[in-house]
């Protein structure tokens, strides 16, 4: 029985015996191939790093023409954005303000909602409900932003005009509300991860000391998870500040700083919307073209800064968990 199987295998040639000692040639090929394989995998891994570096390189290179002409600070200190005028001016203050307005207003809605939802999902709700609710929230992240924009223009805008008597429905508030919905999945899922990964011990210790559920959540759980929650907020903020299509459709794109400053019912224009709206038709190599890239540089600096801050807090959250 044993014999026949071995014979069969050998006959069919399915089994190849590899000698234990390699010839120098085989040894060399093996060595080269393993190094080569490693190198290829390394290059593949690096490709995304290269992509980031290339983006930085090209955005900065294309913006140089603008910075050489206008200087670094002149453009961000004035707010007249008239690139196509007889006397072109490239004041970016209003665009910067537009991005800040829309982003901060979006956070004002999405942070309380998102953090409360995260705590609810991790601490209060039964496993069955959570299994349904969490995927549904994550679907929000999968809806294309044009669909949100369409909703903002066709549903939200007329509604605001009719019910709140705003003179224009496409305004900072409209964009902020839509952006806050778009930032929610990010905030909820990162915050929920950090809240639920705190573990039972902390909560049980709190209950053992006689704390109520409310006290446990607000005085123990949320403070303990604050690093992860801050990281979640910053990630949501980056989602909001980088979003383009929705703000282009919903914010009205008037390059003004609202006056009075708290009036969110006025139309604003963000940095991303300006780039998206004007890049297509701008003459390559012109100052206007450089100015759009300069807006991109400022955006990159802002998002890079936010990213570093969120990395810092995520790392701290991990460290804190490691100790606990």
């Amino acid at each position, binding site marked *: 029985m044993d014999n026949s199987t071995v014979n069969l295998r050998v006959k069919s040639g399915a089994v190849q015996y590899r000698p234990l000692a390699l010839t120098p040639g085989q040894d060399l090929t093996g060595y080269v191939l393993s190094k080569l394989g490693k190198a290829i995998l390394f290059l593949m891994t690096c490709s995304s790093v290269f992509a980031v570096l290339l983006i930085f390189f090209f955005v900065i290179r294309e913006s140089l023409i603008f910075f050489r002409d206008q200087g670094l600070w002149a453009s961000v200190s004035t707010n*007249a954005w008239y690139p196509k005028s*007889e006397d072109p001016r490239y004041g970016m203050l209003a665009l910067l303000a537009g991005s800040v307005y829309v982003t901060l207003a979006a956070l004002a809605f999405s942070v309380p909602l998102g953090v409360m939802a995260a705590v609810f999902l991790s601490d209060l709700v039964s496993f069955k409900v959570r299994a349904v609710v969490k995927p549904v929230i994550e679907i929000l992240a999968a809806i294309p932003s044009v669909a949100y924009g369409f909703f903002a*223009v066709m549903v939200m805008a007329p509604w605001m*005009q009719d019910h709140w008597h705003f003179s224009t429905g496409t305004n900072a508030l409209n964009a902020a509300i839509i952006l806050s919905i778009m930032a929610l999945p990010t905030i909820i899922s990162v915050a929920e991860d950090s809240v639920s990964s705190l573990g039972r011990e902390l909560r049980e210790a709190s209950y053992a000391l006689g704390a109520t559920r409310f006290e446990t959540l607000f005085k123990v759980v949320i403070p303990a998870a604050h690093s992860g929650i801050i990281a979640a907020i910053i990630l949501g903020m980056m989602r909001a500040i980088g979003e383009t299509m929705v703000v282009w459709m919903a914010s009205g794109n008037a390059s*003004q700083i609202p006056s009075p400053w708290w009036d969110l019912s006025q139309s604003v*224009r963000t940095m991303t919307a300006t780039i998206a*709206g*004007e890049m297509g*038709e701008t*003459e390559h190599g012109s100052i206007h073209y450089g100015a759009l890239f300069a807006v991109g540089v400022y955006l990159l600096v802002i998002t890079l800064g936010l990213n570093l801050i969120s990395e810092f807090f995520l790392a701290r959250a991990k460290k804190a968990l490691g100790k606990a």
Partner: protein
Amino acid sequence: MKMLKIGLLLVFMVLAQSVSAETLQIDGSTTVGPIAEAFAEYFKSIYPDLEISVKKTGSGDGAKALGDGMCDIAAMSRFMKLNEFKKCADKGIMPVAHVVAMDGICIIVHPSNPVKALTTQQVQDIYLGKITNWSQVGGPNLAVVAVSRDTSSGTYETFHELVMKKKDIADKVEYVNANPQAHARVSGNRGAIAYVGLGFVDAKVKSLTIDGVVPSKRTIVSGVYPIARPLFLFTNGYPKLGSMVHRFVTFQLTEVGQELVEAKKFVPVTDY
């Protein structure tokens, strides 16, 4: 061996040349681009051997390409500037203009707005931010929401030139990046005003009489309506009669050409 390769390459190049002997290169305005593309598509369907390319770079780039001999037809949303003409002439190229269509721009408001007519000056004042309430032009006490096309569009260019007289639009004016969006903003806001091509006006918005002239195909083509401009195709000299270039730049005079121009929401120069 090397010689053989070069020889083969040369043969291929000659062959490629002879196969695509009939080529038509069109370059220029993004406004005229859609018309040129529609014409090109139709030409491809009736002349399958014709190689035709339409680039949409901008009127200035089109003029430059014609002067450099890089294209057969330059599409332009404005007439060639003296400087551009000189540059072409220096290179032995004589630009000749063919009007392909008219671009007429209507000022539209919400149908419920009782204002029926404005002057060009009043429209300018609205976009300059001097008029902020409809009561200033005989309408209800309602804030004016002025909507403009994005500054890179040809429609904006026309408006900026013919209505604004190249003055800067006020910073509170909102921007949208397509004619249908401008239409949607006006049909959904009782205080809104915007401008769109004649082809985009329907029952959901009301187009205003400007300087006493109702915008229509007839008033636009005849030049009575103030916010209209011709769109051009420029060729090097008048093309040889019956050549492909000639057929292309006179195609708007045919019935199919007229339909294609209308389908792209411009005003045709003919009226069959």
